Structures are given as C-alpha cells and as structure tokens.
C-alpha cells in the first residue's frame, strides 16, 4: 500500500443503526414446500456488526433460511423485519438494492469472465449512468467507471488476488473461485453479507485465509455477516452468536460457548440413544 493512489474506504452504508442494534429480525417464520416443512416457526435476529452463524446437520433448513432472508423464498407465515420495517413480499434484487449480498454454496460466477469483470459485475447496482452513456465511454460514464474500478481494485488488493485479476474464473482452483465470489459480494458494499458455506471443500490453509478475510470484512468494513458453515472449529472461532437448526426447528441460540454446552445441540449432532 502506498500513498500514491487515493485510498478508497470500503464500508457498509450508514443506515442509522448503532452497532449491536437489531438489524434483521425473524418472527415465527415458517416455510414449506408442499407437505415438507423446511422451516417451522423460527424466530431469531441478526444485530448490526456481528458475525452470526447458522449451523445444523444436513437438511436442517440452513440454506432455506438464507433464501428467506434475501427474498428468494417467501415464507407462508411469520414476519421479517429489516431495519425496523416489516418486510413485504420482496424479490432478490430488491434485497440486493437494500444492502443484502450473498455468496452461494455452489460457486455461481460467470465462468468465462475474468476475476476483474466478475467483481465489477457486483457494482452493477451502483452504476447510475445508463447503458448508452456506458457504450460511449466518455465523460461522466468514464469517470464513473474509473471510480468503480478503484473500488474493485481495493477489493482485489484486500483479498490478495492480484495475480488472477485477468484470469477467467473457470480456470481457477475452487478455493480461489470462492474468494472471487466473496469479492463480488463485497463489491456491493453490503450492510448484511450472507455466506453460504464459504469454506466448503477447502483445505486447512484456504480455510484459515478465508476466516481471516471474513474477520477483516467484519472488522474493517463494518459489515454484518450471517454465515452457514459445517466446520465447527471455524464457526466457534469466528462467530459472535450461533443459531442451531435441526429439521427446520430452532434448537439452540447463543454465544459459541452456550451452544457448545446445549444438550439439544449435542444430541442433534451426535445422535441420541433410545
């Protein structure tokens, strides 16, 4: 880092909430597909500035939970309150516009595009000049592009992926693709970042790197993070609070230590003898 380039600060928008205030609240939310109850009667909240983990055995309803939060699924019952306002039926892009970004369990990048372009695509919602201006690539449109590129470069620097800036992401190893995907989500400068198994399929070193990045995002950009993760070591290390799901029900909620000593959680993970 040096003083030559204007240092651009990436940070979550100021939404008037103080750290620790409830940002997102779910009250008695239920979701079913036909006869299958994916989520039944779940309530919990996410506070500004925290790292909130959602854990649970396979099929517990974790990903459904994220999909509900970012408006991809619409719960049949219950109320979701985001920044103090009860949310009506919303589309994913509306969620994105309101400051919620996410990554996916299976990497969902544009495989043929470069790392740079993929992350740049995360800035789409922040572009104000219309298509024709951008095609002309002059004046204000050009300035805007430069401004966005600077933010994207900041992210590339942050995630230490300078060496793959121009590489098509399809060619990259899985661990790096995950990092690019995180980069794209960060490009939105979200208030709430949803990470669906950010460390699945990674080796120990990659997991450590990713943990570091998640902590840094939370710490430096002030982004609130909700993550689903299977690696208990990672979850217990980096999260502030953990909610545990099993068969669509909430069976535990609290700090990592509380959750670790919760008998229901232990039973769900280790099984109970009958």
């Amino acid at each position, binding site marked *: *880092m*040096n*003083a*030559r*380039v204007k240092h651009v600060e990436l940070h979550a928008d100021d939404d008037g909430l103080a750290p620790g205030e409830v940002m997102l609240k779910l009250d008695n939310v239920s979701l079913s597909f036909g006869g299958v109850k994916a989520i039944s009667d779940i309530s919990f909240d996410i506070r500004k500035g925290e790292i909130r983990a959602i854990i649970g055995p396979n099929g517990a309803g974790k990903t459904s939970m994220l999909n509900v939060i970012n408006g991809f699924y619409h719960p049949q019952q219950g109320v979701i309150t985001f920044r103090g306002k009860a949310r009506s039926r919303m589309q994913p892009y509306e969620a994105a516009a309101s400051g919620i970004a996410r990554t996916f369990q299976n990497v969902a990048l544009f495989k043929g595009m470069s790392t740079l372009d993929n992350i740049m695509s995360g800035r789409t919602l922040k572009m104000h000049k219309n298509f024709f201006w951008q095609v002309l690539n002059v004046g204000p449109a050009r300035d805007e592009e430069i401004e966005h*590129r*600077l933010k994207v*470069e*900041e992210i*590339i*620097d*942050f995630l*230490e992926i*300078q*060496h793959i*800036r121009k590489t098509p992401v399809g060619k990259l190893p899985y661990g790096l693709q995950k990092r690019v995907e995180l980069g794209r989500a960060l490009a939105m400068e979200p208030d709430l970042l949803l990470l669906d198994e950010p460390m699945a399929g990674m080796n*120990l*070193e990659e997991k*450590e790197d990713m943990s*570091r990045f998640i902590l*840094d995002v939370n*710490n*430096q950009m002030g982004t609130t993070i909700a993550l689903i993760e299977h690696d208990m070591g990672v979850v217990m290390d980096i999260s502030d609070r953990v909610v545990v799901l099993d068969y669509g029900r909430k069976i535990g909620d609290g700090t990592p230590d509380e959750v670790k000593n919760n008998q229901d959680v232990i039973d769900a993970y280790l099984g109970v003898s009958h």
Partner: protein
Amino acid sequence: MEATGVTAGGKPVTFPQYLLLNAKRFATRPAMRIKDYGIWQTWSWSEQRDEIRDLALGLQAMGLEEGDRIAIVGSNRPRLYWAFCAAQSLKAIPVPVYADSVADEIAYVLNHAGVRFAIVQDQEQVDKLQSVAEDIPGLTDIIYDEPRGLRDYDHTHLHDFATIQEKGRQASASNKALVTDWEERIRASDGSEISAILYTSGTTGRSKGVMLTAAASVKAAEDTAKFDHMTENDEVLAYLPLAWVGDHYLNYAQGYAVGLCMSCPESPETVSQNLREIGPTFYFAPPRVFEGLLTSVMIRMEDASRIKKWLFDHYLAVAKKHGERILEGRPVPLSARISYWLGDKLIYGPLRNVLGFTRIRTAYTAGEAIGPDLFSFFRSLGINLKQLYGQTEAFLYVTAQKDGDVRPDTVGPAAPDVEIRIAENGEVQFRSPGMFTGYYGDEEKTKETMTPDGWVMTGDAGIFDAEGHLKIIDRAKDVGKLTTGALYAPKYIENKLKFFPNIKEAVAFGNGRDFVAVFLNIDLTAVGNWAERNNISYGSYQELAGLPQIYEMMAAHVDQVNRDLAAEPMMAGAQIKRFLVLHKELEADDGELTRTQKVRRGFIAERFEPLIEALYNGSTEQFIETDMTFEDGRKGVIRATVKVADAKTHPAVETLPEAAE
C-alpha cells in the same frame, strides 16, 4: 579516506550522497515503481529523495541515532527500500531480515544485531515480532508499511509508516534548517561508516552478520555497473529477497550508483506478469528460476498444436546450433543467419516476450552450478545470460563473465579490482573493493574467515582453467575421499543429477564410505506432467515418488550421470552405486534447505539416518518416520517405506571414444 561528497565536488562515497546527486542530475527520471491497485505508480529521483527525507526526519524525531541498528523485514516494497537509505542518511545501520524467516530466526538476528527499531511490511511480520518481543529486549518500536488488520493493535510502540513520514514533514515545515542539516550531514560523511549488516543465510550453523562499509559498497557497485555498461536508462525488477546480498547489491547499490529505475512487483505471485510488463534490461535469477522457466515453456509446448510444435522444435535446433555464436559475434554462415533471423521473428522474439526478456541486455545467474543445456538454451535465444561467483562477504562479486567470453562450466575471471588466489588445500581466497570488515559481534568468526594477510577465505574449492576462468567444484570442507581412495565431490555429483528436469534435489553421501549413494527428490511439476501424459494416477508427492516407473526413470538418469563421471579421470571412482527417492520434498521450513534453497547435507544425514543405513547395508526398503512442519506452522509426522535401488556403474574411460564414421 579523504572526505568527499557532493558539495566537495568529489564522487559520492555513500548511498545517501548518491541519492542527493541523482535527485539533482536525474530529478525527473523514474527511480522507483510499484504496481498498486493494478496501475504502475512511479516516483522520480527527486520525489524519492523527498520520501526518504521525510522518513529520515521522522525517525530522527523518534530518536534514531548514529550507529543504531534498524531491522527491515518484508518483501520488495518501495518503502522498505527507502528505509535503507533513510537509515543510512542518519548513519544508522539497516539490518534486513528474510521475510519468510520464522519468528525464532528473526528473534535471533534482531537480538544479535541489537536493533532498536524495526520497519516491517505488514501484520504478519508485526505478529511475528510481537510474539518474540520478550527475546529481543533492545527492540522498542515497530513501524509498519501496510496498516491492514492492525487497526485494533496497541499503538504505543507501533507506528504507521505514513505517520512517521508525516512527523518528519511537519518537523521540517516548522524548522527549515532541519532539511539543510540533513543534507549537510549526508555530505559530510567520508564513507567509513557501516552501510549495512547483511546476515548470511546460514548454510552452516547460525547466520552471521556481515558488516559492509559505505565507501567499499559504493566502490564495488560502481565497478560492476561500469563492467556491464549500466546507465540511468536501465530498469530492474526487484523480486529477490530483500535481505539477500544479491538484491541489495544489484538493485539497491547498483541502482543508486547509476540512477536506474527499480520496480517492485505487485505481489510475490505476480512476478512473472510484472516482469513482462516492465521488461527489465538487467536481470538476475538463480539457476532454479531459469530451470522453472524452461520447464514451464516445455510443458506448455507439449500442449501446443502440431504445426507450432514443429516450428518450435525446428527453430530451437537452429538456435542451438548458431544462436550462441551469433550472440557472441563469432562468424556464422549467411544461410544460418537468415534461418536464425526467421526463427527470431517466429519463435525466439515471441518467447522472449512471454518470459519478459525482450529488453534484457545483461542477465546473470549464480548461487549454484547451472546445467550446460539450460544455460545454452537461454543464450541461444539471444539473451545475454552470464555467470558470476559471489559472496556476502565480498558484497557480491568475486568473479564475473565478460560479454562474449562466456561458458557454462566456469564462473569467469576475477571481477574488476578483485584479486583471487587458490590456497594449498584448493580453497578460493579473494581480496575485493567491496570486501566486508568483519562479522558483527563475532571477532572469532572473523578471524576464522580472514587470513592474517587480509584475504577472505570463501570455503569453496576451485581451480583456474587455462584462460584464467575460475571453476568451483564444491565446498572445500565437503570434498572428501571414499575408502577406495577416490576423490569425492558431492556437489559435483548432485549438480549433474539436478541438471535433469525430473530431479529437483539430490543429496550425495560417500565421504569415508565404500561407495557413493544418493537421495533424490523428484520435480513435482515435470514428473507430475509426465505422469498425467502417461495416465499414471497418484494422490500425493509421497505416492508418486514411490512408483516403480519413477524408479526406472531415476535409474536411467543415474546411469547417465555415471557414464559422464566415468569419462572424467578425476571423478570416475566416485560413481553412484545406490540411490533412493525421498518420500517428502526437502523444505526450508523443516531445516533441510537454507532460505536460499541450498541443501544442508549434515542435517539431512542426521534426520534420515535409517535411510542412509539402508543405502549402505544392502536392504531394498526401509521404513521411516519423519517430523515435518506444515505451511501453517503445525507439526506433523510423515511415515513411509522407502525403496532403495541399485545403479549400474561404468568402467573409467581414459579418453572419449571417437565416434565411428
């Protein structure tokens, strides 16, 4: 030494004096670049002077005084290079430390050098230093370049580089005299102060602090820069470890002496891309880097279309035949010239471009013997690759090859103003302008290394050939004898093995034993690619290394080496009788290699003792358990049953048989 300086009208004798001179004579010319946020940022010499001055005055305000040692830890970053000059301008002594050293190694060096301040690159280094802070009682303050992740650290004794510079800027703004005082102090120096303490990589035991004086360092740099006709128009890419004498000499010292432009890569992973973008005119790389380049070129050509492959092979053969002669300006038939010209347009030019070698005027390699084929490959492409032989104690150059008088098996004649003699035991000794004044805080070691009449003992065994070119055989103390009485030079054998692309590392044993036996490390890139092409699947290095096909391949290589050895009367008695392929790669983190990637034979012998026994007691396999350190610092154990194979030896050949015509 007489007092000279910029104002005195004489030649500069310190690097800060050169800084002032360059800021005047090359004020607007580029001095330093780094790629940041995807864009190359440039500082001119006058801007560089200002950056260094701000830092120096900031350090002065912090209380840095003449003679204080200041550690510099990190990769190649402009600010760390400025730290060298800023410290030197106050007559403080910079002590660079290898950035990938583990905390204990750093603690040893910092404590030994008695540093007061440390300027480090980032959070990683800050964490390392803080973890061993108790072992370095002298260290009071740490200054970091990159603030990332350090926001919540306690900043009582931790400072951002930018705030130190700001402090210097404010001090000089409120008191203009500070600036003139600073320049006056620089000009007043007679160059007799210690300019830097460079710690050796520690091939044998703990590293030693080599003290170099300013005037000697400057003189050495001027000599070699003139030798290679370097000017302010030259460009270099600084990518080698900052703490290594080669980087400090070739980039910093020569850079200041001629006023060239130094570029720093964006990150260690982007070096090859940055090389292409910058297109340096002067380049240094150890043989293993050239080896890696050749391997990657060859591997990529395997996947090329047939036409391209044919063109490549055809014109490479042309280059092999005539390329070096053309480079050296020796007579070549016209038809060959035309063919080479075509090849240059079609293959060599584009290839040089891909490697980032388009503008190279001078390239050097040193540190290890380079394979003749490898060496010729790059030269035949029109790259003026040469060899030098150097030492930290000499501030690099002892010998260097002249343009047009280059060969693969020697390291050239003595460099300008260097005297060399061979002692009775075969050891190379030298006196040179850049010669060190002693090891810091270690009179004993200094006496062991310097002869009473002022020559430095290199510890390398060498011979002069008929034209006065020096040939290094091995470390003097490693040259031994077998029980048969045959001369045994382990490195000579290891190097012959390592010239095969499939062999990454070799360790030979034999001193005081009945015959020579070797450990081999396969090269995972080359052999892995071979395995892929031959549909051989493997899960790990360990598994691949143990495959019978690999043993067959290695046996063929060992056999070839034995044939070569048989052809040399001196070496014929030391052919390889048995070998094995190690179950793990040799790593610096496990102490098996030095930080400059040289094998530590004694340590390896101790660590793999059961395997050595197996080599000499005739068994065909041996179980071994080895501790190892993972990249994250955790320790683990690796278990394996390693096979031992026999090799064919050949009768000594007195003279090479003539090819039957």
